[in-house]
């Protein structure tokens, strides 16, 4: 509470001190890319958390932000090169931190979805199973143990990559792959496609990972990054984020995802 208050105060001070427009600089139109990923954004329905978030960003900042759809792999590449300004729900790692800055707005754990007939009840079972094919989305990174698993299996050529979730679900249903890594926003699809019936969930014993607004360091100067971060923090502070999530998740899930300690 205090932190939010202080944050707001700091923002206000910043704004006062700056004597500039409070909010990000809208000198040019920005680009933001979404990727088709479950509840975050669905191409078929043209709805999703990220879309709502993007709309809110546009509204708050008053800037022109052009939203497009592209594969996650492409998004990271363009963020890195600076051709894309923003994307959403990205997680950081050492490599990404070099070219991207983040503003956190939710966190979640990762899970391993496995077919029941794959014979995996816990993570250590992978040692005895050499027929397991894991499906991942190209350029995706996950929590630490999940990353370790993915890297280990990739070295053994037991990872099939995909451009998005849909083919992975198909492949999982048709036994082309035996498992994939999922997040809470993937759940509805599991029910819809009857994947729940033939699968079980294995937990990675990792803490929840922060997801946030991705800002291209090449495209945005640090000062602007700070402004956009402040905007995101405002959205969190005034419950906008919660509201958006509440449209798609039950309240306990919403709490779990939106309540997190922001690292300083």
């Amino acid at each position: 509470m205090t932190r939010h208050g202080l944050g707001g105060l700091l923002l206000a001070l910043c704004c006062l001190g700056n004597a500039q427009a409070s909010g990000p600089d809208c000198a040019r139109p920005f680009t933001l890319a979404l990727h088709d990923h479950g509840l975050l954004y669905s191409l078929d329905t043209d709805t999703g958390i990220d879309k709502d978030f993007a709309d809110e960003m546009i509204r708050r900042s008053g800037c022109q932000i052009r939203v497009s759809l592209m594969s996650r792999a492409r998004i990271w590449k363009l963020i890195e090169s600076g051709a894309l300004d923003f994307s959403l729900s990205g997680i950081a790692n050492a490599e990404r931190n070099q070219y991207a800055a983040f503003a956190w707005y939710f966190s979640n754990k990762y899970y391993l979805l496995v077919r029941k007939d794959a014979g995996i009840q816990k993570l250590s079972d992978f040692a005895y199973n050499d027929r397991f094919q894991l499906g991942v989305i190209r350029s995706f990174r996950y929590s630490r143990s999940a990353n370790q698993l993915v890297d280990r299996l990739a070295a053994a050529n037991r990872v099939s990559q995909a451009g998005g979730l849909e083919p992975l679900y198909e492949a999982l249903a048709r036994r082309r792959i035996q498992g994939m890594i999922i997040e809470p926003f993937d759940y509805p699809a599991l029910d819809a496609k009857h994947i729940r019936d033939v699968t079980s969930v294995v937990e990675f014993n990792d803490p929840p990972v922060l997801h946030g607004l991705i800002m291209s360091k090449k495209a945005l100067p640090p000062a602007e990054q700070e402004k956009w971060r402040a905007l995101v923090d405002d959205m969190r502070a005034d419950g906008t984020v919660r509201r958006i999530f509440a449209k798609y998740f039950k309240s306990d899930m919403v709490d779990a995802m939106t309540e997190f300690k922001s690292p300083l």
Partner: protein
Amino acid sequence: MSAVRLILLPLLILAAGLGVTWAVWDHDQQASRHEVRSQFNFALGDAVGRIEQRMATYEQMLRGVHGMFAVSGTLDRDQFHDYLKAINLDANLSGVQAVGVVKWVPAADRDAHVAALGGTGVAGYGIHPGGRREAYAPIVQREPPADGDPPVLGFDTWFNPERRLALQRSRDSGSAIVSGKVQLAVDTRGDEEPGFVMYLPVYRRGLPQETAAQRRDSLVGWVYASFRMREVIASLYGEQPPGISLALYDGVEPSATALLYRSPEAGGSSTDAVLSANEYLVVGGHDWMLSMTAHKAFEERFGRNSQAVIAWTGTGLSLLLALLAWAMASGRSRAMRLASLMTRELRESEEKFRALADCTVNLEVWWGLGGRPRWINPSVKEYTGYTVEECMAMRDLAGTLIHPEDMPRVAPELLKGQHGLRGNNLEFRCLRKDGSVLWLSVSWGPIHDARGVFTGFRISGRDITERKLLDAERKIAEDKIRELAFFDALTRLPNRTLLADRLKQAIAVSAQSGASGALLFIDVDNFKTLNDTLGHDKGDLLLQQVAQRLSASVREGDTVARVGGDEFVVVLGNLSGNRQLAASETEAVGEKIRTILGKIYHLDGVEYRSTASIGVTVFNGHHASIDELLKQADLAMYKSKERGRNAMRFFDPAMQTVVVARAALEAGLRKAVDEDLLLLHYQAQVTVDNRITGAEALVRWQHPERGIIFPAEFVPLAEEAGLIHALGDRVLRAACLQLARWSVQPDLAHLTIAVNVSVHQFREPDFVARVLAVIGETGADPRRLKLELTESVLVDNVEDIAEKMHALKDSGVVFSLDDFGIGYSSLSYLKRLPLDQLKIDRSFVRDILVDPNDAAIAKTIVALGKSLALEVIAEGVETAAQRDFLADAGCHAYQGYFFCHPVQVEGFEAFVRRFSQRHRQAAAPAREQVDG
């Protein structure tokens, strides 16, 4: 050990080298695989990216077309045509088959639509396939225009499931959607070229398009672009990367029906696939699967080909190292072998040199392989008397020189030498030219030439004649000493020491074999007498002859030993196991011995007859010790002596008790002598006129258990036990003390005491001194002391006897010769010895009245005494008649029971007083009695 090192070390190095090679090879293998994989992954990602990019480009192009329609809100044909011309499809966007327009025609609007299209100049336009359906979505325009039958225009895309799905999805989402695998409308020939279509919806301008429902309501139609996959892929890559083949499938499963594209190489070389992976693409909301395979060519391009090089160089290096190590190790051993060979050659040449250097001292003979000498050093002349030329010319050098007796011993050794064996310290005799004997000590060894070939052997010899002589002398001396230690010098028989050993052996053998043995104790009878009469040298001769006869009487395994002056022991072995039989066997032997020993001996001109007493004990096993056996035989021998000599007696256990009794008696006697427990009894000596002149002192032993023991029983015992001197001393002292006591009593002072002196006592060198000392100490009057000697004292060394007697006589001691008439003495002694009295032995007195011989002898003795001026006294007078007879004969002194028994001193003194009184009173009548 070096052999192990020789092999082990190189092997280890080889193993290590191979191990390192393998490790490097394996690492390289891993790295290569990793490299290939990462290149492959890159190629895959690259392919995916290009496809996605290409499709994005197509979408952009379609959006451009769409944009045109979105602005106008209608599907104007001419506009479309012009626009497409402008964007110049052919050059930039190869892969696009056609771009066209699909009109949304609900069932109700069908007829109007057909009519309208007919009106715009499309001849023969009709929606095909025909039939009434809910809705239609015919192609209404296509650029480039296509001719064909059926015509493309009017093709109802809604009828086709794949197309319809894409049309629906794009309508609902407002996005460009790609269809599944379709056969393009233009492809009517049945080529089956896989194709797909991208649809982008066009909505009526001005209407809301937020939700799917709104979009449906405002739908006008779609713009589409159709593609042939082959051409799409072809437009991606200018050329395939080497070794990569890919296949593209519609959906997520690689089935034949879903195959959209396959690269040319993929078909043929599926066997050498190195790596393969699948990736799922999402293109225009539609799933495709890209399957990429890398083949050998790819691996060769990107993989490292250094594996073979590593393996070969590594193995080669390891082998080289191992070889080097082996060469070094073996080189060392080779060097050592070479060194040893050189040393040996040097040593041989040294030996040769030394041999030559030795030639002045030693005898050197070098023999060739044929057994003939090939070189002899000049010393042979000094050694043997033969010159070198003579030796070399001999037919058989060894046979000539070596002593024939030693040849059997030496020949085998020479043979060994011929076969290359070494030897030394062989000692044998050689015969010189002059026939004398030379002792040689030789050593021999093989000779090798420079190449190590065996060419013969050499003998080197030293003269050891002197040493041999010394050795022989020493041996003789040793034998002598041994003899002395174990053999009796005189008879050459085993002595007591050796006997004990032999006896022990005999007992042991008996114990082991069960046979009996016998011990014979042989004592030459009266040997002392012989020694005394004939002399010691004759005695020695006798003993030697006895020894010879004994040795001849026994078997070879038996032992004859001399254990004492005249005592021999014979040990018989191998007798019957049965005791009785053994005893008979022994008796036979014993009798034989006795007989032989009884035969006449010729002692240096003197004939002598001797006998032996034999004591025998038979033994079997360890039942008795050596000492016991000897004691038993000894006892038996004594028994045989007791029975009169010249006899053989077997040991009887009963004898043992005698021995024990004897031993006890001896001990008692010793004690009695030591503690002066012996008594003196006195027997009166009376004259014819009834005067008591004195007494004979007779020693008695008061034994605590047995009572009085007479001297006949214990004096021999005392003599044997060596107690006689002490005994004699005691008796003499007691007698002298008594004399001293009587000297102060007037009525007894005249009495004499006669003391018996044994031969042993008299023979003592200090006898005279002793007697004088006792006389002096006691204060007795020597004139009253009478020493009674037996005739046996006179047998030997009369001069000594006479000297002693004279010495004592000078002091006043009186001598009496006891038991006269029955001893050995020669009458001539009588005149040489200072005797005073003769005592007629009782044996003559006993029968003096009935045996005229005894009477005559007694008379003669009296006459003898008279003529020699010696007193004569008769012993053993027991009757008055005897006394009278003797008185008639002229013997005027008597001793015997008639007058007095030997009594203790008090009794004697009483008797004296009484006797004197009686006869003093009846002096005259007594005389008359005698005459009457």
